[in-house]
């Protein structure tokens, strides 16, 4: 089936299988490989995207449900002026090791800071509880979130 949706501000059309996830459509139909495919059950958060401004796991959204809606992926955060401040903070603090979880964490952090520009550590922990990182031990990720918040 054909679906039409807005991805990172651009009107897109994708030919999808009826049972496939938004994640599969983004990666395999639209060539947006930033959102990662790992657990496929909403556990790891590496496919986090914004659907109509709300943070979701793209693996748990039926692609057909995104018809007529607006999706922002990690590719949509940077603009002509360069990286998004959250991306810069991740780079500067060394919050990236293997990098697989990074896109999901960057999207989740962006949404956290939009809702709460000055989060406490507990609030950061809660907001990122759906994003797993198996390398960093989260310390540098917390540093990145705090740095991005400071600069915002």
């Amino acid at each position, binding site marked *: 089936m054909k679906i039409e949706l807005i991805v990172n501000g651009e009107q897109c059309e994708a030919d999808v299988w009826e*049972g496939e996830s938004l994640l599969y459509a983004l990666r395999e139909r639209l060539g947006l490989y930033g959102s990662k495919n790992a657990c496929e059950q909403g556990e790891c958060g590496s496919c986090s995207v914004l659907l109509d401004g709300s943070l979701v796991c793209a693996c748990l959204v039926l692609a057909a449900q995104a018809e007529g809606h607006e999706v922002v992926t990690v590719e949509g955060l940077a603009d002509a002026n360069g990286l998004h401040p959250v991306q810069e903070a991740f780079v500067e603090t060394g919050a990236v090791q293997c990098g697989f979880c990074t896109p999901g964490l960057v999207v989740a952090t962006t949404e956290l800071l939009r809702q709460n520009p000055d989060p406490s550590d507990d609030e950061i922990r809660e907001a990122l509880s759906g994003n797993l990182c198996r390398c960093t031990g989260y310390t540098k990720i917390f540093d990145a979130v705090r740095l991005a918040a400071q600069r915002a």
Partner: protein
Amino acid sequence: MDVLTPRSLDEALRLRAAHPDALPIQGGTDLMVDLNFDRRRPEALLNLNEVAELKGWSRENGVVRLGAGLTYTDAMSAKLAALLPAFSEASRTVGSPQIRNRGTIGGNLGTASPAGDALPPLLISECEVELQSVRGERRLALESFLIGPKRNALAPDELILAVRVRGGLGTQTFMKVGPRNAMVIAVVSLALGVDRERGVLSAAFGSAAPVATLVTAALDDVDSFPEQVAAAASPIDDVRGTGAYRRHALRVLVARALERCLTR
């Protein structure tokens, strides 16, 4: 496979009647896992995301009506937390922000898992389920709607419209045991209410019987209530915990929840 996407409740009910094999999908947090892992291949999916009538909540004469499309994030709002504290606390323990933004109350009832986090707090709030089909509407007590593990009383042509619960029923709380504070399927869960006005204690537990189960007692029974609730459980051993642990944990949770509610 087909995807049917109705734009109104009337259209949804007509499609449901014409395609009883079409599986309703709301937030997809349960169903998409089954699709991704090839565990289910339904003939069709009935996408309820665009049905505005299922969204939101309202209040009338002390009864709170929660639309089937209400998300856990919606349920955490300060207004609902004041009316239905245990339900709002339980919603905070569901999955992660990503899951709470998509998962819905209607989906929790449709899946009817013994571990469904919304079910115990709804049970202690005199919950009725509103079901509708092209034949008409009916209401069922939540206790009658839940008929077995992952089984409910929904007819093949019916949709879950909403649940109705009584707001402001005394002091309430929710507790859940699991290996961490997020992304947890309950090893055991408990919603407890102390209604001093009517002299009633109510407890409902999850993951400790084939269905989420309600136990009530008189306010005077405070001392024996933890034992009464534990005795009403019929927990099994599984990957998440043993039956013996679950029964023990339930007894401890009831005692703690009583303390929390009685000292508030």
